[in-house]
């Protein structure tokens, strides 16, 4: 036990010194990290423990991870998410993959431009209550020897808890899908001929999918107040049900929902979307529940 604690301390100490490694392919956009919360391996690891800590909700039953499940690309597989008090959220849980690139958070324009601001909504929001975090969680963290080590010299405050969670969320980066190998590493065998045809359709003026789902993350800003955001299409094959209210059950229906097309065209677009699934990320131990 003493040896395990010693090793844990060594890992924590080593993490505090190491600059954060992104490991992105050449040409992939640079992550946007706010100046007041730089990435460190130590904060990411602390954030992981907090992200999965079910003691966070007032009733001790829910963590961030309850609605952001790793093998569902950090969504929850439900049409609309349920808070710790059973209140139903009006909208579905959004994927956290590549949030480091996200300029505007949540489904609609609410003026939320940083993860640190956004995290306060599920933590402290009352309309609806999601986690319902209160100061009792600070006492829990301050009394836990594991957290004392993970925090190191940083004071245990709600601000630092939020910053660490944001760091962990920013570490959820997908840049090594078959699509990325095709696009950034120029491996022409990484995706099928049908997927390449789906890509042509995706970027054709007839379908114009790319107008809203644009850039390396295939996403867009909410067009206007009251308009919903085009969410990222990365890992879209594992984030059913679809649309802001989960009203569409399958990826095929979700594609059809956006316009008329032949069965072959739909199949090829779906094939293309499947190339955006990051199997390694869905099972990456660095992003997994540390309590299991």
């Amino acid at each position, binding site marked *: 036990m003493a040896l395990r604690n010693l090793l844990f301390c060594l890992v924590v100490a080593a993490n505090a010194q190491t600059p954060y490694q992104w490991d992105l392919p050449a040409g992939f*956009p640079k992550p946007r990290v706010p100046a007041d919360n730089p990435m460190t391996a130590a904060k990411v690891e602390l954030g992981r423990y907090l992200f999965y800590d079910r003691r966070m909700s007032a009733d001790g039953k829910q963590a961030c991870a309850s609605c952001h499940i790793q093998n569902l690309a950090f969504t929850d597989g439900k049409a609309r998410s349920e808070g710790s008090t059973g209140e139903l959220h009006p909208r579905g849980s959004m994927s956290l993959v590549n949030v480091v690139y996200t300029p505007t958070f949540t489904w609609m324009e609410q003026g939320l431009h940083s993860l640190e601001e956004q995290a306060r909504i599920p933590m402290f929001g009352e309309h609806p209550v999601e986690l319902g975090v209160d100061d009792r969680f600070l006492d829990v963290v301050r009394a836990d020897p594991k957290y004392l080590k993970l925090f190191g010299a940083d004071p245990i405050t709600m601000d630092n808890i939020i910053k660490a969670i944001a760091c962990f969320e920013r570490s959820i980066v997908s840049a090594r899908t078959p699509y990325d190998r095709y*696009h950034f590493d120029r491996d022409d065998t990484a995706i099928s001929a049908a997927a390449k045809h789906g890509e042509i359709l995706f970027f054709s*003026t007839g379908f114009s999918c790319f107008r809203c789902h644009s850039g390396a993350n295939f996403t867009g800003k909410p067009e206007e107040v009251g308009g919903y955001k085009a969410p990222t299409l990365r890992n879209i094959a594992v984030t059913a049900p679809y649309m802001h209210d989960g009203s569409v059950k399958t990826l095929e229906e979700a594609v059809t929902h956006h316009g008329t097309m032949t069965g072959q065209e739909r199949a090829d677009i779906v094939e293309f979307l499947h190339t955006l699934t990051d199997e390694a990320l869905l099972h990456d131990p660095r992003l997994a529940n540390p309590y299991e």
Partner: protein
Amino acid sequence: MRIRGVWRPCYFLTFWLSQRCRIPRLTPWGYTICAMKLALALALLAPLYAQDVETKLVIAGDVAHPLTLSKEELAKMPRTSVTVKGEDDTETTYEGVLLYDILKQAGAPLDKQLMGKALASYVLAEARDGYQVVYTLTELDPSFTSNKIIVADTVNGKPLFPYQGPLRLVVPGEKKGARSLRMLEKITVVRLRK
């Protein structure tokens, strides 16, 4: 009834397909007509399906020498590369031929001829998927601008992706990429006043 001549392979093809895919039983001519419909549908969809599209650029309209440039002809022309900034300041380098050089070769009114009535001209670029964009001659003539609009055939040293190419226009210095038309097929010069 026996289907003869050129129709015979059509008949066999769809008959064979029907056995494999449980298409309802048809008369022999039914299978043949079905095969013809399939072929027609394939021919209509082919332009978007083709992944190894032939590199070809048609220059037409009010130019002295309308021409069609092949991959080899484009490769022989003076090459220019431009680097454009994209999402989060990522840089992408395209290489190809100045649109100015191509239109000059076709005899469009440029340089000293780009004056008076010739200024009321536009350049229509058209893509394989039907997308269209318009430029003016002054936007690509080096006597008017230092901006280099190119017809690119490579991206970061590799051939363009099928959804971009085989040729595309790249307009550096614009805040949006919307005029950097992909899947370029044809350029038409239109003189409004002659």
